[in-house]
């Protein structure tokens, strides 16, 4: 030991410390960030085109290169998309359906996720005879093209007296969200150790308490995924929104569709892009906010073995 102290301090500081890998520039990091950046470019390229187009005037779009930034930036298309674009006689752009969409979105997302997560929960921890069969049919339901069900659902809603109302639409979203969401939750819950569920039962928690207090907080990532899925789907839904409601409840996508999807007449690409980007802002906001709930491995440490 004595001679160790005789070594020059310089050596013991540099070499004997070993090589702590320089994290920032390691090959591994270059790989990781490199790949992520390359993919990000792929994801951003069309976005770039959209943003640029939305900032150009129509003449420039007709002439120019789609990738080039605008020579003359104009926010006119955004303003138009939001508040001036006409839908038939109503020229108040996307703003018209915005609140309708919000009104549809909130109950639909909540109800569909609650119902589906409860289904998933029941199918994982409270199996009953035949529950597997229902589950299989439900998964099968995920593959049925919606359009096929359009008229039967109309008749069903009519018989229930819900046709044309907000709640009818919420119900439709809940039903059509059910297969995939239930699958999502059921399969996620099945990775949660059963002992936790048992412990909660002994602790006197009932069906609902276990769901709300134990499983839900443990499953944040999957709830986020479900929220992403439903918010996107419902916010962008057009078909159900118009088929099952009446004009005063039409969601924003009807306007969006009207702006971008006119078959005849001039296509205002800049307004189309602006409208699309605008419509995407709400989901984007939700993605960003809910992304914080993507917590890491929460079940770790709960259970041994």
């Amino acid at each position, binding site marked *: 030991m004595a001679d160790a102290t005789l070594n020059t301090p310089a050596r013991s500081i540099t070499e004997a410390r070993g090589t702590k890998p320089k994290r920032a520039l390691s090959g591994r990091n270059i790989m990781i960030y490199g790949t992520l950046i390359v993919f990000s470019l792929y994801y951003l390229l069309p976005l770039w085109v959209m943003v640029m187009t939305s900032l150009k005037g129509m003449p420039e779009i*007709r002439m120019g290169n789609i990738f080039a930034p605008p020579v003359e930036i104009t926010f006119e298309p955004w303003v138009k998309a939001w508040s001036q674009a*006409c*839908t*038939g*006689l*109503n*020229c108040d752009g996307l703003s018209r359906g915005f609140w309708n969409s919000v009104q549809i979105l909130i109950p639909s997302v909540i109800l569909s996720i609650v119902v589906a997560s409860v289904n998933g929960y029941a199918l994982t921890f409270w199996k009953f005879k035949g529950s597997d069969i229902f589950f299989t049919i439900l998964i099968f339901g995920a593959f049925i093209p919606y*359009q096929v069900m*359009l*008229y039967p659902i*109309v*008749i069903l*809603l*009519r018989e229930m007296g819900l*046709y*044309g109302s907000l709640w009818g639409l919420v119900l439709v979203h809940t039903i059509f969200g059910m297969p995939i969401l239930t699958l999502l939750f059921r399969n996620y819950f099945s990775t949660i150790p059963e002992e936790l569920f048992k412990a909660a039962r002994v602790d006197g928690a009932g069906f609902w308490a276990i769901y709300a207090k134990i499983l839900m907080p443990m499953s944040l990532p999957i709830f986020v995924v479900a929220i992403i899925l439903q918010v996107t789907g419902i916010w962008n839904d057009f*078909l159900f929104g*118009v*088929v*099952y409601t*009446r*004009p005063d409840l*039409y969601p924003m996508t*009807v306007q969006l*569709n*009207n*702006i*971008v*999807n*006119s*078959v*005849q*007449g*001039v*296509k205002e690409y800049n307004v189309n892009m602006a409208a699309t980007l605008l419509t995407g802002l709400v989901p984007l906001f939700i993605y960003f906010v809910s992304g914080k709930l993507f917590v890491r491995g929460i079940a770790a440490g709960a259970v041994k073995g």
Partner: protein
Amino acid sequence: TELDVTHWWTSGGEAAAVAEMATAFDASGNKWVDAAIAGGGSTARPIIVSRILGGDPMGAFQFNHGRQAEELIEAGLLRDITAVAEAEGWKDLINPPSLLDACTLDGKIYCAPVNIHSWQWLWLSNAAFEKAGVPVPANWEDYVASAPKLREAGILPLALGGQAWQSAGLFNVLMATIAGPDVLAKIYGEGDAELAAGEDMARVFVAAASARDMSRGSNIQDWNLATNMVITGQAGGQIMGDWAQGEFAVANLVAGEDYTCLPGLGVRSVISTGGDAFYFPVIDDPAITAAQDVLAATLLKPETQVAFNLKKGSLPVRGDVNLEAANDCMKKGLEILAAGDTMPDVNMLNTEDTNNQLNDLFVQFFQDGSITPEAAQASFVRIVETKD
């Protein structure tokens, strides 16, 4: 009374046109509640049908003129507006009369036609021909002959979007002009398969094949992009309905100077009389029924017709109105109409099912150079044979 009206006229010009109707209707003391759905018939139709089936129908809705609404009528879901028609004297006013026939089932009138759209137009870019050093053609044959020159000049002779309905439309125009409206009426109207297999049609298919050659290399989907190629001189011409007019107008081109329009391809001066019509679902509410009657009547009033059609770029359904503000091409159309050189629209002859099959066939034919005209004609005959 409030009446919600569903239609798919959502673009700028269309919306302005609808506004004219709405103003006229509102002037009657009622209220037009607009429920526009863009995306054309295939988007709007299920919505309309759903609302009717769902027991919450709109006050009125627009359909293409033709056989589309037959079943709704048969199911008793649409109102018989014969009373209005008689009161307003539509029988005598509507020109061509075939428009009203299309609204009639078992002698009862179920719809109010509002405009005439025709398909049989060839739009040519004067600049393109100038660049290629050939005169602007006056008919289809000239046009075909000038195609190689256009190619040499780096110009696409014929612009054609990739969507199926454009290909089928192009073919039907060729059929109506080259083989003639009677042949078309016989084949589509009566399902005359023999005629479909015959010599006349063979010529049409050859013409279609040359159109295919001319359109090789149009890398676009939407019709308005194709029109835009004509506007910018990148393409020599385009066969498209009269709605293409609007694009030229927006680009500030002047008919006759910057571009040329050839109705009936310059071959045969004929236009089809397709168009749109309004239908009125049965609603158990006398106030609404009354308002529906008012609307039906309003739609065909001369002032409404003028105001509407000028904005829409289509032709009015009654001959007794005066369209001074119309431009060159539109005037040509009016003349043909006045001369009675009209033919029924394909929509009135074919069911949508048949149209769809034709779409499938022709989009294939126009995109795939390896399909011979003969083979295509054989498929065509099969469709005609089985059509109903």
